[in-house]
């Protein structure tokens, strides 16, 4: 949170000095914390990893919310999983500007128990992904709840974000002040919107990435994803493959769209670094010192996907590993620092 605060100047606010372009934090599912707060709502959470948690935007109208929750629960049951319960996430919008307040969603968490037939974490992540995708079509696209937006639904990670300024993230979500809120890793982001307008949804981090820069080839990447998706097949997904379409949410910014594609590649069985290298290959053809194996890797994958190109610095995590990648020309500048720097 201190990092986020000290990078305040990299984000932006609009006409109001208290409505930010967006800020947030992604971290590991904080089991101790969730166990405590879910317990207070009479929800008994199983062991860590045996449940998924969704951070879901919804309408502030209770009746609408009731309807969307029921619709969501139906989807979960159809997917063979079980909803353990809902938690209304406490928020404090005292410091928010009018623009942010006027579009502020209701924040809620849902807990889903993993069914025993799912072989591993990834199988569960895949189920949660299918549920999330279906809920988008069944609730958001079907106009049951225009605010419906799961910013995360995972057994590994959770995202707290919004149309906030860095300083407001901790104020808006009192959860983040709790001493039990623990994670071995965190990804923070403060947004300066470029080609789309600020909104609660378009704040970062997304489910896997936080992004700084621009994807210049976006239209082409969307077109190709669109053209490819009817041919998608995966033994891991099986019949669920049809349920996740459209893969790309074209309402999103370039960052969300990139996240959409990355997520699919990861859940379809590639490691996270593998999928990232597939989407943002290095300039490999004429590289004088790259190994032949790596060149072969890039060559093979160039048959599967065109590069997502443009000045971009992307930090990514699936809650188990973390990494960062630069665009092929090294245009965006990421920096690393080490605790060995002592003043």
């Amino acid at each position: 949170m201190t990092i986020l605060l000290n990078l305040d100047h990299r984000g932006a606010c609009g006409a109001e000095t208290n409505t930010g372009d967006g800020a947030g934090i992604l971290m590991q599912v904080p089991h101790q914390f969730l166990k405590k707060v879910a317990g207070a709502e009479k929800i008994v959470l199983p062991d860590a990893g045996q449940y998924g948690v969704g951070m879901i935007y919804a309408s502030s109208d209770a009746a609408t919310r009731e309807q969307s929750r029921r619709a969501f629960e139906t989807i979960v049951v159809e997917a063979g999983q079980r909803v353990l319960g809902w938690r209304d996430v406490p928020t404090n919008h005292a410091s928010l500007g009018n623009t942010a307040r006027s579009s502020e969603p209701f924040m809620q968490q849902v807990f889903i128990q993993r069914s025993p037939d799912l072989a591993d974490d990834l199988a569960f992540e895949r189920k949660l992904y299918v549920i999330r995708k279906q809920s988008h079509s069944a609730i958001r696209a079907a106009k049951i709840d225009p605010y419906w937006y799961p910013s995360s639904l995972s057994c590994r990670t959770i995202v707290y974000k919004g149309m906030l300024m860095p300083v407001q993230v901790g104020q808006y979500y009192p959860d983040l002040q709790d001493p039990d809120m623990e994670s071995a890793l965190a990804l923070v982001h403060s947004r300066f919107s470029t080609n789309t307008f600020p909104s609660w949804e378009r704040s970062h981090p997304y489910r896997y990435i936080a992004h700084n820069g621009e994807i210049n080839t976006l239209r082409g990447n969307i077109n190709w994803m669109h053209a490819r998706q009817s041919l998608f097949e995966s033994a891991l997904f099986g019949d669920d493959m049809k349920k996740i379409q459209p893969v790309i949410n074209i309402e999103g910014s370039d960052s969300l769209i990139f996240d959409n594609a990355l997520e699919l590649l990861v859940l379809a069985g590639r490691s996270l670094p593998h999928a990232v290298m597939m989407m943002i290959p290095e300039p490999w053809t004429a590289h004088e010192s790259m190994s032949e194996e790596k060149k072969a890797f890039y060559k093979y994958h160039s048959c599967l996907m065109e590069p997502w190109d443009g000045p971009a610095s992307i930090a990514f995590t699936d809650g188990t590993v973390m990494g960062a990648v630069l665009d092929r020309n090294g245009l965006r500048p990421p920096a690393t620092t080490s605790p060995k720097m002592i003043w």
Partner: protein
Amino acid sequence: MLESGEPREVHHYALLIGYGCGAIHPYLAFETIADMIRQGLLVNAEFKPVEFKTACKNYIKAATKGVVKVASKIGISTLQSYRGAQIFEAIGLNQSVIDQYFTWTASRIEGADLEVITREAISRHHHAFPDREVNGRTLDVGGEYQWRKEGEAHLFSPQTIHTLQRAVREGNYALYQQYASLVNQQNQQHYTLRGLLEFQQRQPVPIESVEPVEAIMKRFKTGAMSYGSISKEAHEALAIAMNRIGGKSNTGEGGEDPERYTWTNEQGDSKNSAIKQVASGRFGVTSLYLTQAREIQIKMAQGAKPGEGGQLPGGKVYPWIAKVRHSTPGVGLISPPPHHDIYSIEDLAELIHDLKNANRAARVSVKLVSEVGVGTIAAGVAKAHADVVLVSGFDGGTGASPQTSIKHAGLPWELGLAETHQTLVLNNLRSRIVVETDGQMKTGRDVVIAALLGAEEFGFATAPLVTLGCIMMRVCHLNTCPTGVATQNPELRKNFTGDPQHTVNFMQFIAQEVRELMAELGFRTINEMIGRTDILEPRKAVEHWKAKGLDFSKILYQPQVGAEVGRYCQIPQDHGLEKSLDLTVLLDLCQGAIARGETVKATLPIQNINRAVGTILGNEITKRHWEGLPEDTVHLHFQGSAGQSFGAFLPKGVTLELEGDANDYLGKGLSGGKLILYPPKASTFVAEENIIIGNVGLYGATSGEVYIRGIAGERFGVRNSGVNAIVEGVGDHGCEYMTGGKVVVLGATGRNFAAGMSGGVAYILDELGDFASRCNKQMVGLETLEDPEEISDLQQMIQRHAHYTQSQKAAKVLADWQQMVPKFVKVMPKDYKRVLQAIATAISEGLSGDDALTAAFEANARDVARIGGS
């Protein structure tokens, strides 16, 4: 895969690939080549017919290179990603055509449907294969790029040029009106969108109640044309004219001779350009240059060639051009396509912040090009605290722009301006930023339409040049301009007959026409007019069959917002400078140095939220001491992690010593100051193995000294034109586009070192002997050190490094100096070396100073071996 007779130009291929084509067979292009060979129209240097195969190969090569260039302009580096990327906007196509054939492409004014397209295809076919045999020429003469009799129409025709020139020379408003009515009439004949709009009838007001010509002219600017692309005479005439009327002229990229800041005459004229441009090359951008500005313009893109860098061939870098650009005569200069300190909007915000620190009194303006989505970007620019945003139309630009760019890149300003104004109003940002537009503004009517669409300031480029004698020969890039406007050739410059008063007359005429139209439309002030699209309506009688389907509703749309939302600029931006370390601490601390040149020494803490530290201090010093102060007058020792742009534009006499580390853009535009960096004394890591500063250090630095104990990030020394720096390792792209100064690297470099480096020298301590594989040798040669004087200079520089930073690496190198010397690789730009040799020859022949430079320049211009420009 497409087989077609139609594709023939780069734009056609780019478009086809952009919409997914995997291969193209342009058979008619090849057949045409064969036919031209048969007719003897294609001959080689020996006047022999070119081989058909060779000709086709050359054609394919040119077309391919063109497509790659187009892709690179929009920041796409592989054809695979360009294919299907649909980076196009359609102008004048009906939505039914878009949905079916160009799905998801933007088309804002509707237009031709399939029926119209069919009709045009048939008529063209008919033209080629008429029912009856006809004699003589049957095909159009063309004239897309240059005016031809009976060819494609152009806004500036010989007739309009002549009429305008007579009007301004004679100061004859009636003649101007004749010119304006010719142009406005041509506008109507479907050349421009504004020509298809007309004013509604409104209750007029007496002309006396309309704001005066003088007030209107303050909103006028001339376009950014660099001293280098146009002659000294033309450049200065524009500055004098604009200063006379209280408008603003623009330096363009390439610096300005400080003599122009003080020059005056009995009329009280000034040659100081009010707008100082900061472009990607950063040529001549110093603390003094910025301090002398009333407005600082960041050129993000050029309307006529968006996404492209510039190139000034060696033959045009005359000694006087080289002087203001801080470069070497005869050595070509490259402006990189991007600003290396701006890859996304928050970087732009940083540059705006840095420039505002460099001159708090100047407005900071951002020049964008009219394209789809420009409104959203302009909103970002407003949030980045720019004071002005310029939406530049596609039809600006001199004859030096590439032809594909002139014709097919960028959009008319009407579209970009309308979108910008609407978006800013919608987000309540319009009231805090001035909106300016340019692009073939020629008459008062053009200005009024621009105001109604949302602009409050207006730029003119081609027309003012015409008032100074330009006759649109379109040879700007050839240095052969017969009127002395766009040439550096001293002989041709003698032909220059322009007088600033001619430009003044033009501006007055324009303002007068604006005023008359305002009276007619019932407006007393320009501010009242801004964004009043309700006064505009599509011309009722659009005669042309192809223009019938046009729909202007998106351009004329008025956002529904409350009365409290401002529609023109009325609130100053909050730049947050009062929170800066300079204003809270440094200025008070250094008051004695600023006012009286007293020495100041202090130790202070620093944090990464302290950005552009030292820049305001530098500005205050430069205001009073143009040449800076004596070395080390101010010596500030900081402890901690410095934020971005540490020491940006720091002038001579200021030394910033940083014990800690620094973010990106260290020493940006360094203007004589000294920077010393080393890790905290208590830290435990090995300094020369760790990165201590971020990326893009010393971008556009012009003079000064830098000592860094540790490794620098990527692009260290990019566009350095005069700083001497020592560092213990650099990332990729080190010394890119460098034109002067010295960089010593006591360690490894990343890949692509010295790309585009045309001047200055770098010394790399290559202990492993593998540096050559990481160096881009296109423009540089690698040498060993032999000259004893040079070796001794290097040794002294490393001694200073050891002294200032306690570097252990430097100590090791110095301890074993004789063994180390052969391990240094000297990176020497080839053109630079040739010119230095020519200067040495001239000096040995007894010449000195400017004469030696001129002789060297001329000798070099005759040398065919030059790389950097032909």
